[in-house]
């Protein structure tokens, strides 16, 4: 499967229009040493939609998310069995370089973690190390605009990224992630460390970004999942603390008419 539709030199961008799913997990199992963290997951993520992953604490939501861009491998004892198909290619295949996977499947973390560099450098660095040779200034501005941060920082691009408020830092992290032109953006509880107003801004931003990117967001806030996402996956954990997928479907269906009793129990607050 080729992705040559609107290539910009080094950057392949955009999923081919005939791809139904942005990314798929097939019989995915993730181990940390001997401990099974995620068990037998089959999940197909719709393209250019927001998919939320919800579930109680410790049920493997973050592990599942990080399996999509091979970030679990940074933990020495982690190993993965099963497949994750991105553009029809198993990203865990022998000859696939995780570095390129991580460029095309970007990530935003729970606690905003801008680099201790200037705002401009934060956005430009990822672009430069990936070999981009065009106009970095224009790309930085475009990314900051897309992340709804440009107006607030355009006159202080040389100031440190750490001098921004929490919500601004998180938007800077989003700008930095979209600057390298990923196809999918993974967000691990992006607003949990922020105040309610900043949270709403992030949620608005997510809806705007979903026009161009596929977004998968892990959240422990069910109201946020209900507000923001198009599809929801509910994870639970069994007696051995291994996470597994209970139910997956359009958000409306999950919240108003869940098919599985465990889902209903979780949503109505009976546990978790």
């Amino acid at each position, binding site marked *: 499967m080729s992705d040559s539709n609107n290539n910009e030199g080094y950057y392949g961008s955009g999923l081919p229009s005939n791809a139904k799913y942005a990314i798929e997990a097939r019989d995915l199992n993730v181990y940390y040493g001997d401990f099974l963290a995620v068990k037998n997951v089959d999940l197909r993520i719709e393209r250019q939609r927001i998919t939320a992953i919800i579930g109680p604490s410790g049920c493997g939501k973050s592990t599942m998310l990080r399996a999509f*861009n091979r*970030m679990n491998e*940074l933990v*020495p004892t982690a190993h993965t069995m099963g497949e994750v198909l991105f553009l029809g290619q198993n990203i865990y295949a022998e000859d696939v370089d995780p*570095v*390129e996977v*991580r*460029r*095309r499947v*970007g*990530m*935003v*973390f729970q*606690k905003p*973690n*801008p*680099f*201790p560099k200037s705002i401009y450098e934060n956005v430009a*660095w*990822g672009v430069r*190390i*990936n070999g981009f040779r065009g106009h970095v200034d224009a790309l930085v501005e475009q990314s900051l605009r897309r992340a709804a941060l440009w107006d607030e920082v355009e006159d202080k691009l040389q100031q440190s990224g750490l001098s921004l408020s929490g919500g601004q830092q998180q938007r800077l*992290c989003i700008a*930095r*992630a979209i600057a*390298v032109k990923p196809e999918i953006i993974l967000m691990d509880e992006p607003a949990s460390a922020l105040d309610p107003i900043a949270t709403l801004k992030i949620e608005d931003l997510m809806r705007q970004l979903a026009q161009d990117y596929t977004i998968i967001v892990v959240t422990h806030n069910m109201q946020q999942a209900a507000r923001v996402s198009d599809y929801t996956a509910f994870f639970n954990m069994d007696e051995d603390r291994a996470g597994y997928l209970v139910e997956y479907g359009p958000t409306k269906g999950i919240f108003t008419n869940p098919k599985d009793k465990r889902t209903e129990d979780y949503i109505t607050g009976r546990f978790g």
Partner: protein
Amino acid sequence: MSQSDLNGRPASARTAWLPALSAGGTPVVEGKSGVQSPANLAARQRIGHIWHWLFQASTIVGIIALTALLYTVVVQSFGLVAMQDAVDPASLAVNGVPVEQLSQEKLAAILAEHVSAGVIRRLESEKPFAERSREEMYALVVERVVKPGVVASWSLGDSLLRRPVILAEMAQAYPGARLEWRSWLNVDFLRHPQSSTPELAGVRTALLGSLWTIMITILIAFPVGVGAAIYLEEYARDNVANRIIQTNINNLAGVPSIIYGMLGLALFVRVLEPLTSGALLGAAADPTTANGRTILSAALTLALLVLPLLIINAQEAMRAVPRSLRDASYGLGATHWQTIWHHVLPNALPGILTGTILAISRAIGETAPLVVVGAATFIAVDPSGPFSKFTTLPIQIYQWTSRPQDQFRNIAAAAIIVLLILLLALNASAILLRNRYSRRM
């Protein structure tokens, strides 16, 4: 009549806000103002105060030690001296021209007149008179003919407090001498090379030797140490072999420095003599007398000595870089090396520089290994490069303290001050560098 506390609340209101402790079974005492508190609270606070006092006492012990060190050194470096010339310089004037302005040939003639032939031959072989400048000849005349001698010296305390007693003493014991205030640490002290007369001796050769040695040591040890630390911290897998390597590096930091001296002697001075003497690179000054006892050998030995220190500090610094920073870098599609170079190392740099400061401090003060490696006992020629014979400040100080004359103790004290200042200057620049990198973060 009701007592009130600082906020003006009456006593009854105060007790009201404390929970009823006695109800829960905790033994309770009542204070002067009627406030209830747990019975052991006062004892617990007292224990805390005792520890506080002990720690403060430890600090004071350290301060006393430092003060004693500085006092001993400063007291010997400044004071009154009784000076006496062997030959009056006025008597050396030729045709009314004072000796300071005589030409080179006339000075040579004066030397020939007053100094034995054997000494003249030796001086000629060291450096022929024709090649010496006028200033050098004058210095020789002063050293060999005029021979200003310090016949007695007194410490700073005595000089300041007991001056009349000293004057009387001097008039009695040394009638021909004059009393002068002398700062043993002066500009000439820094400019003069080694000499067997304490009044004319200086630390120039030793200072330059120390500077050359420490410079080459850091040039070798820094890249090797940081490189090894990067490998051990970032690339080495956690298996038995690597754990053995790590343990050994940690242990090497505690090995006595004399052993490094012996290693240096066997390896750098003897086995690698073609390299360290400069013969291999054709840089040896005099091929017939060149041997491995050069600055390069000393620097290599010291580099090995401080390497474990540097590696351990660099590793700690890199371990302290937060994982969130690495995650952010990887999340953007950076390779392992890009993450290390652009994020881990810059963040670890302040810690690495701290390790360098410790390494410099350790290396500058090392005496025993350098004596083994072959620092010269008496050398009056400046080191000109890595392949020169050398001596260092600590060795010079050690030498001077083992001489019988009193005055050598004075100049040893002055040399100690020079060493301390050198150490402070090097550390200060490393600290400035570290602060500059910390602020950038």
